[in-house]
């Protein structure tokens, strides 16, 4: 089974978010980058399936050279090889076109990724890739198993419940917890990752359909109003009469 796992390179979950150049650009200064946490679920599940059924796991990143440390990390966790499409990921539509081009060429059985990236929170790419390739996309999935060699069974979240879906290979799925316990690299993985192939290719053309023009931050809270624990019931009155939310 050939699995393609798409990963994005995102600011660490604890990063302070700031903007520069008249609020037109994200300020990368002092920001640590990690593999998008949702993508880690996709990556680990792909490796588990490979271990159980045989095959290979290829990681794919659409991004610039500064993503390579995290691509190596994905190799250290257990992917076999990697591809980086050397391009600034302009928007979801652009990224989906790049993934589709690579996926069509590679003939993968399964294309997995996280349900969204924690920086741009798009929740779009997986469904766009499914539509561009004309294959099913099951998102957001929190369970993924093989029924037989050509069929997978997934459970996906819908508002207020879940659906059980069976699909024939090939398909696209996006991952979320609790699909698996994301793995961290071990020493041996880190050593072997250095020699695993990482191929850099140029973008397959493609256009963006949106332009990020400006950023802003939410207004700061004015500070917390403390209520004495002995008089806790007072809070309910404030929520009704002052905050007007009850």
């Amino acid at each position, binding site marked *: 089974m050939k699995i393609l796992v798409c990963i994005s390179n995102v600011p660490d979950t604890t990063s302070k978010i700031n903007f520069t150049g008249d609020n037109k650009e994200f300020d990368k200064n002092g920001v640590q980058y990690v593999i998008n946490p949702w993508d880690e679920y996709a990556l680990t599940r792909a490796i588990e399936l490979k271990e159980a059924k045989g095959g290979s796991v290829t990681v794919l990143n659409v991004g610039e050279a500064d993503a390579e440390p995290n691509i190596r990390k994905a190799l250290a966790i257990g992917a076999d090889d990697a591809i980086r499409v050397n391009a600034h990921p302009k928007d979801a539509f652009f990224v989906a076109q790049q993934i589709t081009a690579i996926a069509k060429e590679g003939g993968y059985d399964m294309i997995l990724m996280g349900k969204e990236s924690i920086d741009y929170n798009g929740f779009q790419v997986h469904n766009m890739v499914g539509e561009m390739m004309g294959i099913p996309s099951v998102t957001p999935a929190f369970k993924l198993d093989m029924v037989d060699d050509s069929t997978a069974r997934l459970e996906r979240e819908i508002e207020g419940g879940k659906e*059980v879906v069976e699909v024939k290979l090939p398909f696209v799925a996006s991952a979320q917890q609790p699909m698996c316990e994301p793995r961290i690299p071990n020493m041996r993985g880190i050593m072997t990752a250095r020699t695993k192939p990482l191929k850099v290719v140029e973008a397959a053309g493609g256009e963006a359909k949106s332009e990020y023009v400006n950023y802003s931050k939410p207004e700061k809270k004015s500070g917390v109003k*403390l209520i004495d624990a002995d008089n806790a019931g007072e809070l309910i009155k404030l929520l009704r009469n002052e905050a007007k939310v009850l």
Partner: protein
Amino acid sequence: MSVLVFVEGLNGEIKKSSLEAASYGSQVAQAMGTSATAVAIGDVHEDALARLGEQGISKVLYDADDRLKQFVADAYVKVIAKAAQQESAKVLVFSNSNIGAAVGSKLAVRLNGSLATNVTELPKIDGGNFTVTRGVFSGKAFAQVNLTSDLKIIAVKKNSTDIISNGGTSATVEKISADLAESDFAVAPKETVMQETDGGVLLPEAEIVVSGGRGMKGPENWHLIEELAKELGAATACSKPVSDIGWRPHHEHVGQTGITVSPNLYIAAGISGAIQHLAGVNSSKVIVVINKDPEAPFFKAADYGIVGDALEVLPKLIEAAKALDK
């Protein structure tokens, strides 16, 4: 030219998030000097559809095909694409739900549109520019984005638009059919399992959320969270470690790696307020924190706070909530 809104039904009624999308869509239509049409699929009564007039919708296209009662992406996409074509829609509006965003993404490819998800405000339409504001960096920032294709597709973040109400106006309901084939149902769900809510409120739709963390000490104390939620008409939620250790089900886990909520009121009991937790709740309008540690980081993000033992504070809140006239 028109604005087309996709509305989702549940048990015959229109979901609250879809009433928000309808209100958003009709305001966009007004700004563009056109009308707003809705397209509805599946599990919703016709009289509920007519009531969308309240939200400024003039016409509703309804596909009553029984096979559409459960979500089947390909079939839904076909029906909405047909409606968009029939109405010469220039703007499509969805709720930013798992269904809305999925269908919106597929339509962006099929109809060659520009898509923005997680949209928090009405667009600015200025000459040739159509600019939306969307939440980015997990609630830590907003981005202003130009949608550059002729067709704009917008998925509106839940609880970010007020539901408008034009007293007594009703919408006309017309049938639509997209001649669906068997093959459009190839990936229909084998099984759909809805959560038991005991008549309570579903978390993604909730206006009030009562949430517990590790400071609640154990599942045996969760009746306090549930009772307060019941008194306030709220949904219940939890922090990640609480669902990881199995005190609560995973679908209640909010935060960076769980679900994102933006209710009017979020009450957190025994939750420290780690940045990954805040990422899922920081766009709540009012935040209340109950924590025995006055230094807990959550107090910095809170509007109201009580420093104290949650197991002692919650019973007092339940009592006060019972005394409210509803």
